[in-house]
């Protein structure tokens, strides 16, 4: 092997990417050829300098990435659902799941997002509903119905599709009392997390109403779906100073199985300091197994000049 071939092979030799016989030839050549040996030394020095300047993720950055991912995943549907997307139900779920993808979040209740939700209310309404109903003739208490969909549009209205003997669509503005009542009922729809999450999304900017706030508190405490609970927490953000809300947040923090929900609850609680929060955070540290959450609690307690442990 001549010098030219050896010099060209040195980077590959360094990374163990040459055949064993070529390796032997390079080693023998380096042994007897000073300029090539110098090339070899330079290769090692380059690699060593690059190693010293390798970047390693800080634990905080990793924790933040995990947190962000967890939140994004809650907005996604189960991958299992997409596998069966060839049937109508699968296609619906596929379409629905796309609503939660990053960049397609509909923060504003008036966002134009179609939602065809299956699932039924258990006869919450009694009475009749005239054919071709409009909101003017709509009285939620006066019909036997199932809710098939909740569909907001760009103009600040929402269409709600109901089943009685056949499906009907009602539409109205979000500030309409009857629409809000339907949405509050939809937020409790047990069998359909899609309807619940959509309804809570639409209601979350209307927490100034005690009834809506009650629904949000109920969702954050009892909804089995973490995506719905997170949405409800967003809706409670503006009321984080309210005594009842804080009591619920403390319960959520100590009982919720979902780390993303607990993190959000911490954020809301520490936005307004009170002695009860200190005690809640101290209790949480003692039982929390998530390192990031423990770290958040410790930081929050330090910021409040409180001790990390209980004595």
């Amino acid at each position: 092997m001549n010098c030219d071939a050896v010099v060209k092979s040195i980077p590959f030799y360094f990374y163990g990417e040459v055949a064993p016989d070529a390796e032997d030839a390079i080693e023998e050549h380096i042994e007897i050829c000073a300029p090539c040996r110098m090339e070899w030394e330079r290769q090692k020095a380059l690699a060593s300098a690059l190693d010293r300047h390798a970047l390693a993720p800080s634990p905080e950055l990793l924790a933040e990435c995990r947190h962000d991912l967890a939140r994004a995943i809650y907005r996604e549907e189960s991958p299992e659902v997409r596998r069966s997307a060839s049937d109508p139900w699968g296609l619906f779920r596929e379409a629905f799941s796309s609503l939660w993808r990053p960049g397609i979040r509909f923060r504003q209740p008036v966002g134009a997002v179609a939602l065809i939700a299956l699932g039924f209310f258990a006869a919450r309404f009694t009475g009749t509903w005239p054919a071709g109903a409009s909101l003017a003739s709509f009285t939620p208490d006066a019909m036997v119905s199932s809710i098939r969909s909740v569909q907001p549009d760009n103009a600040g209205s929402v269409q709600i599709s109901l089943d009685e003997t056949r499906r009907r669509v009602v539409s109205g503005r979000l500030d309409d009392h009857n629409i809000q009542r339907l949405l509050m009922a939809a937020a409790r729809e047990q069998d359909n997390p899609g309807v619940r999450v959509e309804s809570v999304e639409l209601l979350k900017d209307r927490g100034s109403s005690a009834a809506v706030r009650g629904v949000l508190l109920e969702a954050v405490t009892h909804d089995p779906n973490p995506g719905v609970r997170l949405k409800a927490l967003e809706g409670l953000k503006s009321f984080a100073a309210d005594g009842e809300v804080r009591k619920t947040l403390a319960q959520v923090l100590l009982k919720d199985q979902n780390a993303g929900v607990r993190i959000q609850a911490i954020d809301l609680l520490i936005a307004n300091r009170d002695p009860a929060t200190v005690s809640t955070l101290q209790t949480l540290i003692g039982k929390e197994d998530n390192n990031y959450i423990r770290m958040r609690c410790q930081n929050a307690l330090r910021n409040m000049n409180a001790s990390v442990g209980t004595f």
Partner: protein
Amino acid sequence: MLQDAAGAVSARAVAKVDEATLIRAVQRGDQDAFEQLVRAYDQSVLRLAMNLLRSPEDARDVYQEAFLRVYRNIHTFRFDCSFHTWLYRIVTNICLDHLRKRKVRREESAVVETADGPVDRMDSFEQEGTHANPERRMWNTQLGDRIENALGDLTPRERTVFELRHYQGLRLRTIGEMLGTSEEAAKNCLFRATQKMRVVLGDLV
């Protein structure tokens, strides 16, 4: 010795079986299994993105986008390559897109203005092997700047191949497979990358 080697092979085989079980569970929609899968790989994914993009914000974006793609497409994974190869293919594709966009809009400054004054975004990184000695630190800073320049001179593909070979320790054949190219093409990229860096860093190493 032979027993140790057999033990290592056996441990790898067990790990592969466990991983396959985990992946199948994710394909069935098991969220806990997905979390386990993420945690098995996410540190190396973040490290790869950080070293390739040299920007914490971009690395964070890549992390999220890569694992969301995995989540959405895991049902298409057919075990015809290793999960590691599949995942890294996703990550490197996203990183390559970032690098290409960056080439178009020119390299961003690492220093950003904040309410507290100018902040170097690279401070979010922990640099390995930092030294307390002031002279040594200054030399390191100089070398670090030159390394940044040298990496900036590489094409996105050269940079990716170099990162995967040097920092991630992947074989050129695997790198070629990940990037949808041949081992020979990966080898050429590595050679060009090494030569360019030696030119830029020549007097310092």
